């Protein structure tokens, strides 16, 4: 028996394949500042990834899923679930996941659904996939966290709300690149950030998004999963926390006892922005790209509304070989075309043309 609250399947589950996707356009935060703050001033550091005109969560999920499938080296027809978590599903009604499933050849013998839980919709899908595979119902389940994040023009969110995410194919631990030891989910009703139906942009509680929301949920989830497994920060080679900005994950890592070194490989926010449902998951891909076999990883997502999903993973011997079967996350980050605010406004549909 595991301790109350911990999520552990009957059959051991691992990540059989993973893949990232980050679009090529970059908007420097200084460009947002130039328009909304101080035309002559020096803007904040960092930049965010912006999807091109022909991209959305469906197309980005397809590419991430294809990367995951390349590394998994399994037949797509053996997938039994395709789940996509996002705040930016292109349709209000009509699943993103069916398009993705069709594109990778997983149809028709598969479950497909879209998930919504703010920035943790993707890890929510991962947790469900653990259950799906771990129960023996399925051998493989694909969970994706992907976003083309929304931020109202001029809002603090606009500096970081970026585009990107990752796909994880979960399957039997024997075939995995990383085993998933255990997971845990910490949830309360905390309205720190939300978007009402039919609204274009989310609203947030400013400083209320900090202590009672982000910090509380991530800390509780991380502490619980570590204490329940008798582990402490030094037992992990890497830790990845949801990244709404640079400061929050740094601060929560420090307060939990993690060093800057442990979080640096999974920290992408200053280079691609906050990719909402993709944020923690794409951070994990960057870690898997560099980790050695046998290393332990702590992953904690955060979704407004609010909750945190925590996972403990251990990389396997199969990782170094198979990760070369698809583009690594760094290649996507390095492929960049800087754009100005006008181009960004156009790409994001913020120009009124009709």
């Amino acid at each position, binding site marked *: 028996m595991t301790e109350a609250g911990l999520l552990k399947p009957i059959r051991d589950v691992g990540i059989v394949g993973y893949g990232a996707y980050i679009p*090529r356009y970059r908007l420097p935060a200084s460009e947002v500042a130039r328009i909304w703050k101080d035309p002559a001033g020096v803007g904040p550091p960092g930049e965010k990834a912006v999807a091109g005109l022909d991209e959305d969560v469906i197309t980005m999920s397809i590419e991430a899923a294809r990367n995951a499938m390349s590394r998994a080296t399994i037949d797509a027809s053996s997938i039994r679930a395709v789940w996509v978590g996002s705040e930016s599903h292109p349709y209000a009604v009509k699943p993103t996941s069916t398009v993705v499933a069709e594109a990778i050849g997983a149809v028709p013998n598969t479950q497909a659904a879209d998930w919504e839980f703010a920035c943790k919709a993707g890890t929510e899908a991962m947790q469900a996939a653990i259950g799906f595979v771990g129960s023996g119902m399925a051998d493989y389940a694909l969970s994706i966290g992907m976003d083309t994040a929304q931020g109202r023009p001029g809002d603090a969110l606009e500096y970081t709300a970026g585009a990107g995410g990752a796909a994880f194919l979960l399957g039997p631990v024997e075939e995995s690149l990383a085993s998933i030891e255990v997971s845990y989910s910490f949830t309360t009703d905390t309205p720190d950030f939300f978007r009402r139906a039919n609204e274009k942009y989310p609203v947030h509680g400013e400083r209320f998004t900090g202590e009672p929301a982000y910090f509380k949920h991530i800390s509780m989830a991380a502490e619980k999963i570590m204490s329940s497994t008798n582990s402490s920060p030094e037992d992990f080679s890497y830790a990845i926390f949801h990244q709404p900005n640079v400061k929050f994950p740094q601060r929560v890592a420090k307060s939990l006892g993690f060093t800057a070194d442990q979080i640096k490989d999974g920290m992408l926010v200053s280079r691609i922005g906050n990719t909402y449902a993709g944020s923690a998951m794409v951070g994990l891909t960057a870690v898997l790209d560099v980790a050695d076999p046998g290393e332990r990883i702590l992953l904690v997502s955060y979704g407004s509304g609010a909750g945190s999903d925590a996972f403990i993973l251990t990389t396997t011997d199969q990782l170094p070989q198979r990760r070369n079967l698809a583009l690594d996350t760094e290649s996507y980050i390095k492929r960049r075309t800087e754009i100005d605010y006008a181009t960004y406004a156009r790409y994001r549909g913020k120009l009124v043309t009709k």
Partner: protein
Amino acid sequence: MEVSRHWRLNKQRYSLVGEVCPHCEHKLFPPRDICPDCGEDARDLFEFSGKGSVYSFTTVSQAPAGFEESVPYTVAIVQLDEGPLVTAQLTDLGDKPVEIGTPVEMVTRKLRSDGDQGMLIYGYKFRPAFAA
């Protein structure tokens, strides 16, 4: 609103599924059921690798209806590694100019939408191959 004429082509459009002639091995895209090479029945499905090179290309600045919001965009005839030519947009071009012969790879992207309320139509485009 138009739905079925796009839906029925999903497999071809999303992942370049064409055909291979069981008689002469000729690869067909778009699928056409009769091999143009040997005239025999050719219905075996074949998924193309998506790798190819630019045969020719141009830029569209005066777009037909449904594509106005994408201008200027680049259209190409791409020669797939397996042989066939295919007409498709190029995307994510970056700073390097496209040339005849530029290696490209298939990506699935939004082609257009059927008005504001109609379906989103996804299909193949090509981007310069990652120099990974």
